């Protein structure tokens, strides 16, 4: 059982490159999984459960993504009966500072935080992954 996993769900290649450098530097003990959109993240999550490998301890989620955006991913999680909400720990990580997005994030119990880009060292220490 490996629960040191952290998902980074974002379609922006530049952001992902920089963010992963920062994250790995702060938490070399963790495995960071990069996923390009909501659907990739959803499928990965499902396969983890099926193979009984356990939940990621944190999901960093962007909103604006192709194929399946952040909201659609959250809705899919909500509807999926095979997932235990209580174990989910999602933090939004987005460039959106719109109030409607911030308010909408609050509607999901398993969304525990809302981080606006740029992603900083300080944001990482506040996450308390370790």
């Amino acid at each position, binding site marked *: 059982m490996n629960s040191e996993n952290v998902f980074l769900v974002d379609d922006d*290649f530049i952001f992902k490159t*920089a963010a992963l450098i920062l994250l790995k530097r702060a938490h070399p003990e963790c495995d960071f999984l990069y996923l390009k959109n909501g659907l990739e993240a959803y499928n990965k999550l499902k396969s983890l459960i099926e193979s009984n490998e356990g939940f990621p301890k944190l999901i960093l989620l962007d*909103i*604006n993504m*192709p194929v399946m955006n952040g909201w659609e991913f959250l809705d899919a999680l909500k509807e999926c009966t095979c997932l235990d909400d209580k174990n989910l720990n999602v933090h939004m990580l987005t*460039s*959106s500072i719109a109030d409607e997005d911030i308010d909408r994030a609050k509607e999901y119990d398993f969304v525990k935080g809302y981080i606006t*880009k740029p992603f900083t060292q300080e944001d990482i220490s506040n996450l308390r992954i370790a």
Partner: protein
Amino acid sequence: MNITTPQTSLIQKSTVPVALIDKQANLIEYSQALAVFFECSEENNETFDNSIIDNVLNTIKPILKSKQHFEEEIKIFTEDNKERWIKLNVYPYFGKAKLYQVFFSDITLQKTESYLAAQAHQLAKVGSWNMNLLTDTLIWSKVAKEIYGYPEDYPITINEAIESCKEGEHRNKMIQMFEACVEKGIDYDLETLIVTATGEEKWIHKIGKAVQVNGKTIAVRGAFQDIDKFKRQRNEFDKLNERMRIAVDRTNIGVWDYDIINDKMIWDRNMFNLFDIKEEGFDFKVAVKNIFPEDLNVLNKKIAESIKNLTSFEAEFRVIDRKNAVMHLKCKGKVLCKESKPYRIVGVNIDVTAEKNKNQKMQELLEVTENQNQRLLNFAYIVSHNLRSSSSNISMLASMLNSKLSKSEQEDFIEMIKVSSDNLNETITQLNEVVKIQTTKVSELQPIFLKEIIDKAIQSISALILDANAEINIAIDDKIKVYGIKPYMNSIFFNLLTNSIKYKCDKRKLMIAINVVSQDDDIIVSFSDNGLGIDLEKHGNKIFGMNKTFHKNKDARGIGLFITKTHVEAMKGEISVTSQVDKGTTFQLNLKQNI
């Protein structure tokens, strides 16, 4: 007494009713015709009772002294108790003895007629008078004096007659007209105010007629009628009517009256103003042609229905005036019935154009406001997402530059900062374009050859097309023109082409098909690809929103389709999309050929 005269036999044989009498009014002889005159046939002459003649003759007995001819009218009653008027013409015939010839004539008809006329005059209060200019005498009838409030036997003078006219315009006019009648023989007929003997003002209808001999007026005869009550009522009515008319004139309300049975329409002045047509040569059937046909259909239906159900109706319709401007009229009508049969419709038409235009203006303003509001929201969204994603990347990358990065990592970072700043720049350019679209005017639209536009767009991204190994097939007539703005048309095809390339399916060669056909006033462009496709069930109507990116790859900004839609609509066109995931997408553009 038995007197024989040469006339005797003549009188007996006379074919006119005549009798010969002596000075005591004794009947000497009479004609057969007189017996007939008294309803007795010739055959039973023997049985004719001449006492009836004796009775008649007795009435003239007291006046048989005259040596001159005289007339007398006598009323008798017939056997069946009917009134009969007989006129006697008495001629003295002096021979050996003093005798008289009496001619009989029946004047019952004339008598009763003049009697009725006199009665009618009394009832209608028509007074008559006669002014003899030769003797300078004025005679008024009984009713005339009654109208003026004088006693029956009052000897009215000419001065009194003139002074009875109300001082001022009424008297002046009367004198003027009377003089014209005397001097030039011009008859007059007028309504005027008089002052009666009791000082009361009264409206009188006066008629005067000159009696002329050899072109010279010798008398004036006239009549007058008391029309005071009627005149005052009419004045009151006229005043009311005038007030109504002024009120109606100001409100742009036209009144019409339709005779159902005779198919006749009467319009008031306002109706002509409303329809902007002349009163002369008015033909209702022609005027109706100015109404919009579809509105006329509805109107006719409503009228037919209200005639059938005997109800009132209300409708609105549009009319073209002489300046080709559209007017909106509101019509209300009521069906009138006689013995529960419709025979007439009376209605009003009101001009509601200003109201309509105001409403439309308001609606337009509302749409503009809504549109602007939507753009503002989109603008805020794009600032929040697209602008911030690039700017936050730059900020993040820059802050990491001075941390522990390897040389090659630093070089990568600088490259990434460059890409991000390019993206930022592009987003800002597009935002600027979004703002610009809103200020397009219709007057800027012009006919453009569509083929040229498409060729140019393809040429401008030929490197991109080559790189993507895309195949483009175009089916268009060179001569097809669309009504638009060149930079917008360029931008539309540029956006659609790059969109297809961005969202191509890596598993197959990209094929793009552009088909253009002309259909009525429209040019229909169908732009299809075999790319990734869009899940329309999920994204539906938000597809052309500024904030939507469906297949985000690194170039996607989500503004492209929004700008395309705005451009199409600015040129009065429409855009729609059909798509199937993993099959491809087709955009259909309906562009205008003319204004």
